[in-house]
């Protein structure tokens, strides 16, 4: 019995070994090496083009099969068709802009991801087969590939930044730190199959400034940081994030705040100003909105970063929703769930626009400046400019607004007694 198993055993081992080697070599050659040097084979763009064709085909199949199911090629009517118009009509009556912004856009065309088609039911076998194959490819092939890359990217980031941290401060260290950061972020980009188009790169943020961008998902950081070097700002976390943060700060100065320090606005402002004043330090990357908006609008920018009084480099990021929705509804999904969603989507396609730098003008206060920057970003990215505070999603009411309400309430109390006497 054993003598039978032996040759199979070693055969299997050999096959496994060979396939792993081939796998990793391919990975290295096609993904990691280009990431290191910042070149691209154009594989991802080719992939994107084929995906678009695939979506068009599936949409055609969808509409054809829906018509066929109804039994004729004529415009078919169903009693329930009126609901669509009715609903649209009522939506325009209610026209609650804020609600529209907070839930992910429902897509008109179906991009073969069940999440975005709420009414998925068996339409045609061919379409289901296509969807099934899509699931297999996404979860069986793309997901493991991406997870491997993600681990590689993060691992390299931690290891290499720690090594660079051993160097003495100086030009060599800065140069190496830049290279290391860029390389690792590029690997992470490939881990998400993110296909990014950068526009107007001549406006890229320079040292001594603050880079301000609209925020749709945690991926925004990776997207921007793979094209330029920034100093990150954030709260100190524990666990894996903490390890990454501590390693990164060894190579170049990032700004990490302790939880207690975050509440102290003056401390935050001081640290940011100090960083900005030092010309040798990298531009700070800040997302003033403070929470993830679903990429159709730009909510109220918090004024803190605009009070510092240095040049602001606005950046607009817009995701293409056809390929995968990058929006993170943090009150609904946790981080791991979100990353899983991201890594099992087809791709993440987005555009980044670097806008020309802006500074606070004479007689303008921080809030007006913030609004001006926000409007510029919204205009560029084709996003709707809204006045609402992004904090609405979690329902917090700031102290200032609370005080204002109390003032109005007391006014009304005096006023309402008059109304009551009248009625």
């Amino acid at each position, binding site marked *: 019995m054993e003598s039978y198993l032996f040759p199979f055993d070693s055969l299997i081992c050999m096959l496994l070994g060979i396939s792993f080697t081939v796998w990793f070599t391919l990975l290295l050659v096609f993904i990691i090496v280009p990431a290191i040097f910042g070149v691209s084979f154009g594989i991802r763009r080719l992939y994107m083009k084929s995906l678009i064709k695939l979506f068009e085909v599936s949409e055609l199949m969808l509409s054809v099969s829906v018509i066929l199911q109804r039994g004729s090629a004529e415009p078919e009517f169903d009693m329930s068709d*009126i609901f669509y118009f009715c*609903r649209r009509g009522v939506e*325009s*009556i*209610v026209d609650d802009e804020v609600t529209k912004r907070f839930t992910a856009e429902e897509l008109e065309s179906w991009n073969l991801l069940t999440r975005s088609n709420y009414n998925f039911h068996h339409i045609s076998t061919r379409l289901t087969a296509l969807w099934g194959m899509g699931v297999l490819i996404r979860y069986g092939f793309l997901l493991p590939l991406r997870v491997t890359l993600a681990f590689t990217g993060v691992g390299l980031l931690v290891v290499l930044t720690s090594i660079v941290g051993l160097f003495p401060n100086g030009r060599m260290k800065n140069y190496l730190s830049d290279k290391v950061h860029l390389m690792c972020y590029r690997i992470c980009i490939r881990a998400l199959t993110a296909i990014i188009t950068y526009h107007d790169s001549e406006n890229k943020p320079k040292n001594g400034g603050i880079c301000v961008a609209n925020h749709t998902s945690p991926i925004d950081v990776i997207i921007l940081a793979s094209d330029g070097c920034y100093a990150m700002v954030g709260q100190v976390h524990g666990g894996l994030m903490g390890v990454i943060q501590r390693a990164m700060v060894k190579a170049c100065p990032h700004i990490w705040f302790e939880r207690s320090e975050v509440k102290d606005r003056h401390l935050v402002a001081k640290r940011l100003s100090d960083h900005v004043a030092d010309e040798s330090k990298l531009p700070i990357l800040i997302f003033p909105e403070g929470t993830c908006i679903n990429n159709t609008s730009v909510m109220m920018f918090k004024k803190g970063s605009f009070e510092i009084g240095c040049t602001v480099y606005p950046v607009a990021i817009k995701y293409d929703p056809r390929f995968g929705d990058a929006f993170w509804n943090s009150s609904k999904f946790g981080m791991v769930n979100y990353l899983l969603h991201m890594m099992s989507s087809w791709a993440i396609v987005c555009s980044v626009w670097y806008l020309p730098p802006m500074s606070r003008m004479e007689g303008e206060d921080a809030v007006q400046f913030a609004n001006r920057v926000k409007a510029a970003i919204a205009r560029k990215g084709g996003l709707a400019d809204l006045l609402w505070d992004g904090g609405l999603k979690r329902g917090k009411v700031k102290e200032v607004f609370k005080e*204002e*309400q109390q003032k109005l309430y007391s006014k009304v109390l005096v006023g309402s007694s008059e109304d009551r006497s009248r009625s």
Partner: protein
Amino acid sequence: MGSTSSTLLKIPNVEVLMQETGFSPAHIIRLHDRFKALDKEGRGHLCPQDFGAIKELAMNPIGDRIIGAFFSPGKETVDFHTFVKILAHFRPVDKDRPKEPNSPEPINSRSNKLKFAFQLYDQDKDGKISRDELLKVLRSMLGMQVTEEQLESIADRTIQEADLDRDEAISFEEFRKSLEKVNIDHKMSIRFLR
């Protein structure tokens, strides 16, 4: 942002309104803001022209029917309460609401949603959708894309499929039956802010 408690105080009988419709205070305030925004002349009620000023509604093929749904026969104005009650039809169905035996059916129940849709078809309010009424709706929704014969054949086919008692018209029960497989909650609900 909005002055929450003071706005709520200004609305008469707001508690009853919230009870009947199931909207939360935040919803009511949003709808009140919207009501005020539509009521451009500040009269405290809306007339058909106020609705007509909404661009997307004017472009909607059945826009005027939807507007008509807000004004009960004989009334020329809509006050805030009626506004909210009609919009309550579009609240998503409360899946967790316990079924109390004596409480009235909520405004956003499946049945009431269907009734709302039914009245969009049944303009003369005789409880039946006649062939003529169906043709009118079809003409509104399909516009000039379709010839008169195609329109008539569609109408005839629809009546044939749905009309169970063979009276050449679709009653509410037949309407309901023809839509039993349709996910009304999804199609006739809109997302109101939490």
